[in-house]
């Protein structure tokens, strides 16, 4: 029997990974170079690292300080990225400061997911220190000019112009037919992989990995059943749009989705 389900499901990608600096300039990412992190393609990592974007302009990178550090930040960084409040001193990092790194100070390898933050040099750069947390985000529109997820930029636009992201890929958003849904796998207590017939028309499958609250696999399955069989009058059923705070079915399934990693075959 043919599957005549005409629903379409929309998944917006949202990739996020955090690193704690374990010793000065050496990170739990496994990368030993100064101010450098390796994004990892895993359920507890960033997701697809082949297409993280093409430049630092396609990411948002923040550093959360766990203590005071002198002369560790370029003088262009004046505002806390979470609160929008002015830093007590631009160059001297204080405990709790959240610094959003300007795209000019973020390097992104073209294909291996290596992210580098430029070291301090007068107005620019940031020197990472022990105990600080670096968080990297990618989603449709992420970059200096977007404040949906991180509400403020630490560098005023007038000081150093904010660059808009211009590099979007299938990892940022996809609409898939419900009829092509193949199944759900519990990859871990906090991650469920949804498989679909490939958009490429090949035998391999396309995967959408949902990172969610612990022990929510059954709830994810119940949500998917509702989505697959929903009557939305022909419009797409939005399953994930983390950046815009949209959750499936207005949150009635209490999934706690924090990331959506899209990997097409």
């Amino acid at each position, binding site marked *: 029997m*043919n599957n*005549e389900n*005409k629903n*379409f499901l*929309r998944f*917006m990608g949202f990739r996020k990974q955090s690193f704690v600096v374990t010793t000065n300039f050496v990170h739990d990412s496994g990368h030993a170079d100064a101010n450098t992190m390796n994004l990892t393609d895993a359920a507890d990592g960033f997701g697809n690292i*082949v*297409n993280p*974007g*093409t430049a630092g302009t396609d990411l948002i990178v923040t550093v959360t300080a766990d203590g005071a550090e002198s002369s560790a930040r370029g003088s262009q960084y004046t505002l806390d990225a979470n609160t929008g409040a002015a830093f007590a001193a631009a160059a001297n990092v204080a405990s709790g400061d959240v610094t959003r790194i300007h795209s000019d100070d973020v390097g992104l390898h073209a294909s291996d997911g290596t992210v580098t933050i430029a070291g301090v040099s007068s107005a620019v750069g940031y020197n990472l220190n022990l105990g600080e947390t670096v968080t990297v985000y990618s989603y*449709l529109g992420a970059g200096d000019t977007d404040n949906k997820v991180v509400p403020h930029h630490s560098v005023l636009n007038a000081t150093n112009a904010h660059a808009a*992201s*211009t*590099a*979007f*890929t*299938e*990892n*940022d*958003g*996809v*609409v*898939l*037919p419900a*009829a*092509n849904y193949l199944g759900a796998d519990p990859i871990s207590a906090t991650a469920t992989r949804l498989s*679909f*017939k*490939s*958009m*490429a*028309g*090949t*035998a391999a499958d*396309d995967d959408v990995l949902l990172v969610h609250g612990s022990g929510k696999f059954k709830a994810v399955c119940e949500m998917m059943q509702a989505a697959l069989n929903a009557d939305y*009058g*022909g*419009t*797409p059923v939005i399953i994930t749009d983390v950046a815009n705070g949209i959750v499936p079915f207005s949150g009635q399934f209490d999934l706690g989705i924090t990331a959506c990693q899209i990997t*097409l075959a």
Partner: protein
Amino acid sequence: MKGENYLYFNAHTAEPAADDKAMMIPASTVLGIAVGAIAGTVDVDAIYLTCEGFVGDGNSRGSVVLAVTEGKLVEAMDDVVSAINANPGDGFTVIADVKNGVYCSNHITGCTVDSAV
């Protein structure tokens, strides 16, 4: 009996008269729509629709790159889905017709067709 909608794409500014200038596909063969111009290729103003390949080997796809107004990728994807599921009287659904300037979304501005990727 109306079976299903059939989706029409014409990438050509004239009447299509060669391979990959245009195509019509059953809506049920659509495999998905993704952000970006093509698999793994970044883009700021395009979405990528794929369908089952015309060769019928189960191991290929047809594709349409839809040019979209920058900043309206999501809206365009949603509009295409609504068009796919619309109920026109005869089932003939124009997604993008460059020759006649007809698009199913105000955010779509053109298309490129490839019937066998």
